[in-house]
């Protein structure tokens, strides 16, 4: 990264961590009916959109019905995957003890089996956020998203791979846990993989059957229009979630870390890393809901298990704390943040130099880069 890593003293880091803990405690103490009503309201809207969208496909041969149905179904899938699925699976609503909203059993309307997601996302990504070599969300194993990933000619296709990933994002996420790039690198642990593949195949087949066989047949003569509508809804959801998710950690200014500099982190340092590694999107209320409140990526990474609709109100406090400690708070509109992600994808398709010796080895910069957090550790 080109940005300077800001530094905090050990005391400042821990004091900052305590402030974050205090925000968390305050929200936990206040959690209750309001949050239950909110998520149930969203679930109700999503179900109505799904039932409405799928019913409108009966008249899919009429262009306005097709358009309305496809839009409703796209919104249903976006809400199901983001504001509901992603957040429920974080355990944000476990305290309600409603089996329909329990993080451990939730299954969503996308190809990725929920069980795999809980591992690769809740554990791997949220614990090791932006640590190169540990956080597999950095480029999803197929893209070069960091200068510290060693360049090779394969990465000339970076923009093409990114486009394909955006279009087929649900399948990219589904295959995420397979660590395909390691297959390429020739480290097959076949037993474990076979099991994963079986589960992905089963879930993927069910999803495809539902959208491309069952529901089209249910709409009778409209079947071809239903297939097209469902495909469009999946595509819309794919591109939208790709954009939101890539804006979470890859815009200019979001930091990456090495395994060395993050070994034996304290709680304060962990908060600090989450903050530096994440970026927010600014926008209106509906935009935030449709992004699953991942537009508040910073707050989400600080407090992954607080109900996401609270992030907006928390963000003012987090931002104020950042100003006091001189920590940059990365936020911007979708246009700007996504623009900078696209630029990065293109830039990193070519061999890059950060002006430091040995950069192409992808190793030597680490101690230099570590200095920022090393001060905090001291």
């Amino acid at each position, binding site marked *: 990264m080109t940005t300077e890593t800001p530094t905090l003293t050990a005391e400042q880091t821990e004091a900052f961590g305590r402030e974050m803990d205090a925000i968390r405690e305050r929200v936990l103490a206040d959690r209750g009916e309001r*949050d239950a009503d909110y998520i149930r309201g969203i679930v109700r809207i999503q*179900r109505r959109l799904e039932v409405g969208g799928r019913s409108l496909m009966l008249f899919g041969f009429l262009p306005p019905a097709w358009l309305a149905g496809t839009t409703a179904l796209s919104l249903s899938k976006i809400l199901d995957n983001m504001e509901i699925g992603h957040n429920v699976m974080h355990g944000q609503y*476990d*305290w309600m003890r409603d089996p329909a909203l329990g*993080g451990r059993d939730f299954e969503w309307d996308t190809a990725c089996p929920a069980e795999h997601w*809980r591992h690769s996302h*809740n*554990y791997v990504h*949220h614990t090791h956020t932006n640590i190169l070599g540990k956080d597999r969300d950095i480029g999803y194993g197929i893209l070069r998203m960091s200068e510290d990933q060693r360049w090779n000619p394969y990465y000339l296709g970076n923009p093409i791979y990114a486009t394909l990933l955006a279009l087929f994002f649900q399948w990219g996420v589904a295959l995420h846990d397979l660590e395909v790039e390691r297959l390429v690198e020739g480290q097959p642990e076949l037993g474990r993989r076979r099991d994963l593949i079986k589960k992905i195949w089963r879930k993927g087949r069910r999803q495809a059957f539902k959208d491309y066989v069952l529901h089209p047949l249910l709409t009778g003569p409209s079947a071809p229009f239903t297939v097209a509508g469902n495909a469009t809804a999946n595509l819309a959801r794919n591109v939208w979630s790709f954009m939101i998710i890539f804006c979470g950690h890859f815009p200019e200014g979001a930091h990456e870390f090495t395994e060395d500099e993050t070994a034996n982190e304290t*709680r304060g340092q962990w908060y600090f890393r989450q903050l530096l590694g994440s970026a927010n999107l600014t926008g209106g209320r509906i935009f935030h809901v449709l992004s699953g409140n991942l537009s508040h990526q910073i707050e989400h990474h600080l407090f992954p298990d607080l109900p996401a609709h609270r992030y907006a109100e928390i963000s003012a406090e987090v931002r104020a704390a950042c100003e006091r400690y001189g920590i940059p708070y990365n936020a911007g509109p979708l246009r700007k943040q996504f623009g900078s992600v696209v630029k990065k994808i293109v830039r990193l398709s070519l061999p890059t130099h950060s002006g430091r010796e040995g950069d192409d080895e992808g190793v030597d910069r680490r101690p230099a880069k570590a200095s920022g957090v090393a001060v905090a550790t001291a």
Partner: protein
Amino acid sequence: MDHYLELLHPRATVQAVRGEVTDVRRPTPQSVTLTLRPTDTWRGFRAGQHVNLSVEIGGVRHTRSYSPASSEYVSDQIELTVTAHPEGTVSQDLRSQAREGMLVGLSQAEGDFLVPERRPERLLLVSGGSGITPVMAMLRTLCDEGHDGEVVFLHYARGAPETIYARELKRLAREHPNVRLVRAHTRPGGPEAELAGHFTRAHLTAAVGDHSDVETYVCGPSSLVDAVQAVWAEDGLEQHLHLERFTLPIASADPADAEGGRVLFSSSDVRLESDGRPLLEQAERAGLTPAYGCRMGICRTCTCRKVGGAVRDLRSGTVSSSGDEEIQPCVSVPVGEVIVDL
């Protein structure tokens, strides 16, 4: 599927069992009697069994077991009488908030506290306080089917005002010559009671005489059940005694308690003295292999059910309630006695 049917009608389900409150009465200062109309998915119950009732309070779903008090022969209704305990979140809420039209979650009936199909010649039904409900269901069922064997109903209450079903018991005893009502009041000086004080062998003799050929069903607080059990054990007649204890919630732990305490991992039946470390580590040291991820309270891979007892959250220092709830064992240490489903 049920989630989509909900959009149409709250009682339209294919799997879930729910109940609509159709009548609410408050017979004594502490209790509330609810009549529920269950969904068609309800498979009925047998007198003496219990159901899990779920209600939502402050956005949180709470589940408790209650024994229907209604007759088996009334299949489209369930009658539950709930007694409010000073620390009972659910019972307090139902006592004050229950109203007609309210929807509650239900389970199918469970339990083997049952009178056999071939009804015994002599029956003694003993209950204390709110423990009256399952034996009330038995009495009503026996009366409905015209059972003519001897049935003695021995009920303990503090006094007449606290006696649930007082009037109906009197009526059933009057209408059915084979049914005899024996009331015992533990508070001295009340009228209308045949016996005074807590259960003794003398009470037993007064109620049924020789009890060697009597099948006995007891439900009530531990003190009553223990006292009855001791007499039957002395006489070597325990095979004729059937017990149902209702357990009051474990009292909330004092946060100032030392970190010590005992842990029971209930699924693997491992007991240990707490060493003050997170439950996940203690489970691992005991040879269990629970799932885990971040080990710092973020990912919830290790989330498991706490059946009872309190834990302290290492991040905030707050002590949990003592009820049944999900916890993150990687950041929870036991406070006092804790039962965890691992």
